[in-house]
Each structure stands twice: as C-alpha cells, then as structure tokens.
C-alpha cells in the first residue's frame, strides 16, 4: 500500500532524512520509532503529501503520490501529532466535514459519523462543541477525523499523547480494527508497550535511515538484550565470567537466558552467596531492543527484581 524509496529531506543544513526506504502492506501496522528529532513527523508529512522531499519517491497503492495527489489523497487518513479539531464546531460537524471532504455522500457520511462516534466512544457527545470535550475526548475526536472515511492508508502520529487509559485502549482497538479491515497503518509513539499490544511490525528511524524493519518478535530476538545482576549487601564475591559493578555482580558477556545464568552463578558461588541481597533480571523487550538499535546507553531498563531467589 505504501512504498517509500530513497527519501531525502533537509531543512537548510540540517539533514533529517538520508535515503529512507519503507514499505507498509495492506492490513499491516508498522510502528515507526525513533528518538525525538529523528524525522518521524517529517517522514509522515512527506508520505501524506504535506511536504516535498528533496529526493526520492512515495507510492501509494501503486501510484506516485506526488503526481497523482488527488487520487492518492483519498486513500489517506492523517492524524497529525498536534491536536487538530475545530473547537467551535460540534463533534458531529467536525466528523461530517472530513467525511464529506473525503468524498462521501451525505447519507453515507451520516452513517459513518454515527458508527465512528460509536467506535471512539463519542456518540453521546456528537452535538456538543468540541471545545467542551475533555482532553482524552478531544484526542479521540482528532483520531476519529482521520479514519472517518475508512482510508486504506492511515498515518497516526502519536495518537495517544495526552489520552487517559480508557481513551488509549479505545484508540488501540480502532487501530486493530482498521488493520483487520485491510488498512495499512503507520503508527508513531513513544509508548512502546502500545506496539506490543498492537502486534505491530517495527521500523526504527535512526540517523536519517530506517535502521531496522522487522516483525516485533524478530526485533526483540535480534536486538533485545537480556541482563542479570546479583546484588550483595556486603562484600561482592568474585566469580569467573562475571565482574563487580558497585554492589553488584554482572556477567562479562550478554546472556541469552538471564534466569538460568543467575541460577548457575548462585550454584557456583555456593556458600559465598550468603551476602546476596537480590537478583535483578532484565528480560529482552522492545524497549531494550530499541535502545540497542538507537545506541542510547545508560538508560534504565525494565528491571524485575527476584528477591525470592535471593531468599
């Protein structure tokens, strides 16, 4: 559905995209990740036709998106990063406007407004001005306006920012539904667990290029580092293959199975493990994989402290 080739974009001397290639198929959700300023929003803006690239091409449903703009625009739904709603119009008027703008006839548009409002839990707010909605409701309306016409290609740029837990769950449900109906979804977020919940494929934009593009399990398997540390209350014992890191004993090399490595180390330490205060296990995750791909050292990873082992 979306084919991006060799996309290059610079703002003055600041080169943001250095030849991005990215494919997103029908029915696929791709989580587009990258540090702040990596160019995710620029990439989406170009793919959605809002900006022109310096070089490269964007094809949507097989058509050149720049040459066949009106045709390809009909296939797109965009929820930009910043909230974009008409505050003085009602929820119904906001939704109706974008449904009609997408080319839906009045009766179809009305039906779509009702079903979309239902899906986004906005049905009871349809006749209220958008400015009277809560933050989460505004965010849901913002996203609903992007998908009111059931687009074939959806760009959701951080759609859950500022949304409460219920709103976030609702938005994720709709994204899953869109993909199930065959839409290609490009989804950017800093909440990595959302991508795990969506079962999204992962594309990491780093240093101006797509550094990794693979299914989620593969990304975690290839880059998600596991870790283990034995924490001591008193003197930290020495063990071959492990090094002392403050009050902790950590493996000198990456371990594939941190629980097994901890058990083996404790067995090898025997009585010398008497001062053990805790065992820290870091399981492979999208977060650890993402940090490894983007080379961000020293960032705290998810830790699971298994005090039971120490006991």
């Amino acid at each position, binding site marked *: 559905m979306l084919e991006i080739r060799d996309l290059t974009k610079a703002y003055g001397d600041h080169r943001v995209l250095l030849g991005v290639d990215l494919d997103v198929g029908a029915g696929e959700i791709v989580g587009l990740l990258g540090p702040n300023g990596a160019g995710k929003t620029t990439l989406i*803006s170009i793919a*959605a*036709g*809002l*900006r*022109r690239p310096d070089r490269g091409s964007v094809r949507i449903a097989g058509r050149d998106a720049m040459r066949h*703009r*009106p045709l390809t*625009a*009909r296939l*797109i739904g*965009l929820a*930009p990063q*910043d*909230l*974009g*709603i*008409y*505050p*003085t*119009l009602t929820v119904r*008027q906001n939704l109706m*406007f*974008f449904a*009609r*703008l*997408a*080319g839906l006839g009045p009766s179809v548009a009305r039906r779509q407004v009702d079903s979309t409002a239902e899906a986004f839990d906005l049905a009871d707010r349809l006749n209220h*001005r958008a400015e009277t909605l809560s933050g989460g409701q505004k965010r849901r309306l913002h996203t609903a*306006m*992007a998908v009111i016409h059931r687009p074939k290609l959806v760009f959701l740029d951080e759609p859950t920012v500022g949304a409460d837990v219920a709103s976030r769950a609702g938005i994720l449900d709709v994204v899953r539904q869109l993909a199930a109906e065959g839409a290609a979804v490009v989804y950017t977020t800093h909440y990595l667990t959302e991508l795990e919940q969506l079962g999204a494929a992962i594309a990491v934009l780093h240093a101006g290029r797509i550094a990794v593009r693979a299914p989620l399990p593969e990304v975690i398997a290839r880059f998600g580092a596991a870790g283990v540390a034995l924490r001591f209350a008193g003197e930290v014992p020495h063990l071959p293959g492990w090094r002392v890191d403050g009050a902790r004993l950590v493996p000198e090399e990456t371990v594939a199975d941190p629980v097994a490595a901890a058990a083996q180390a404790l067995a090898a330490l025997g009585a010398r493990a008497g001062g053990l205060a805790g065992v820290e296990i870091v399981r492979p995750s999208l977060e650890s994989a993402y940090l490894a791909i983007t080379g961000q050292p020293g960032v705290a990873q998810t830790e699971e402290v298994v005090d039971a082992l120490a006991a």
Partner: protein
Amino acid sequence: MLSRRSLVVAGTGARLLLADPAPIIVTIVLPVLFGAFLLPSSRAQLRQSGIANATGAEHLVPGLAVLFAFLGVSLVGTLFFREHAWGTWDRLRASSASTADIFVGKLLPLYACLLAQLAVVFTAGAVMFGYRVTGSLLALAVVLALFVAVLVAFGAMLAAVFRTMDQAIVIGNVGGMAMAGLGGALAPASTLPAWAQAAAHASPAYWTLDAIEDITLHRAGLADVTTPLAVLAGFLVLFSAVAVARFRAEDTKVGTT
C-alpha cells in the same frame, strides 16, 4: 472553479463564521450606530459642497458602509491563521481538497457575509436615514460586489504575506482604515486636502465611493461607472496575483495572538 470540495469547505467556513458572529455583527451595527449621530454633519458637508437638497445620507451611508467593510480584511486573515492555531490546516491539506478548493472554500462565506453586511447597512440607511439611489440599483450591486471581492483579495494577500495573525490584523486594520479615510469614507474626497485627493486614487475605497456617488446622486447606470469598475478590477487582479504568488500552503503561520 466551484468544485464540490470547495463548497464543502465553504459550508464549514460558514458554520465557523456563524459560530462566532460577533465580528460580522460589529461591522453591521457600528455603521448604523455612527450614522445616527453623524447624519447632521454629513448633511452640512454635502450642502457646503454644493448639493442643496442633500439629506446627508447620500454620502454618510456609503461612507460608513465602506469604512466598516474594511474591517472584513482582517477577518480574511483570521480565517487562515485560525486554521493554523487549531491545527486543522495540515488536516485540510492532507485531504483530497486542492489548495484552490481550500482557498475558494475559505473565502466564499466571508465574501457572502461582507456582501450581506453592505446590503443590510444600505437597507438600514434607506429606512433610517432616507438614503435613496437615483441611478441604477444593478450598477450599485455590481460596484459593491466588486468592492467586496477587492477587500477579500486584499485580506488574502495579507494572509499570504505575513507570518503571524497579529501582523496581518494590524496591517489589515491600519491599512484598511487609511484606505477608507483617504478614499473619502469619512468625508467626501472633494473636501480633502489636495495631496490627499491625489493620493486617494491609490485607494479602492475612492473608486468605490466615486461610483456610488454617481449612482446615488447623478442617475448613473452601469455604463457610466465603467472607469471605477475597471480600476477596482485592477486592484482585484493585483491583490489576487500577489496572494497567489506569495501563498505557500506549507508555510508555518502563527495563528495565536
């Protein structure tokens, strides 16, 4: 020119104007209010300038209508800048509406509102102050329709040229008032100093009021006001050309004050 999508944009534009109608109401109420206490001085001015039976409404009504119509210039800028402030501009651009659809759709409701504003002020002038037209009503309608088109194009030009709403509003209001005053909206151009009379030719208000004066007092028809109409058309082309040349849909505008 009027595509289905531009009409959809226009429909929503009209709803946005109606959702916050205060600026339009002001441009209708103020001229009527001002007319109530400025009529005697207008009468005196006209009689001094040789129109013996003048009621004052002959100049007062068109003058105030033109003066306050210039407030519409900043409303045009507001239309575009608010889209940026609301974050809806990129959504519009990402839709299948073309830039021309959006432009026409945004301007159409305001054009209709400003035209309606002039119609209400002229009608109120006739009912309350005895304003009468001796010439062709069709000619008057054509002059007003073209004048409003010039105002809208001027506002679109400011929206295209300036980056912030404040800049566009200030220049729109100051420039608009200057053009209206210089063009004879406050006092007949013939009573202005010589240098101002010369400069007045650079104002669309002058040509509009010149045509309306002929239609109001001298039984003029459409054929008699071709020169002012041609000059107004020139302003329309000039402002539109600058707006189109300078307008960049991808430009970042600051839409908050």
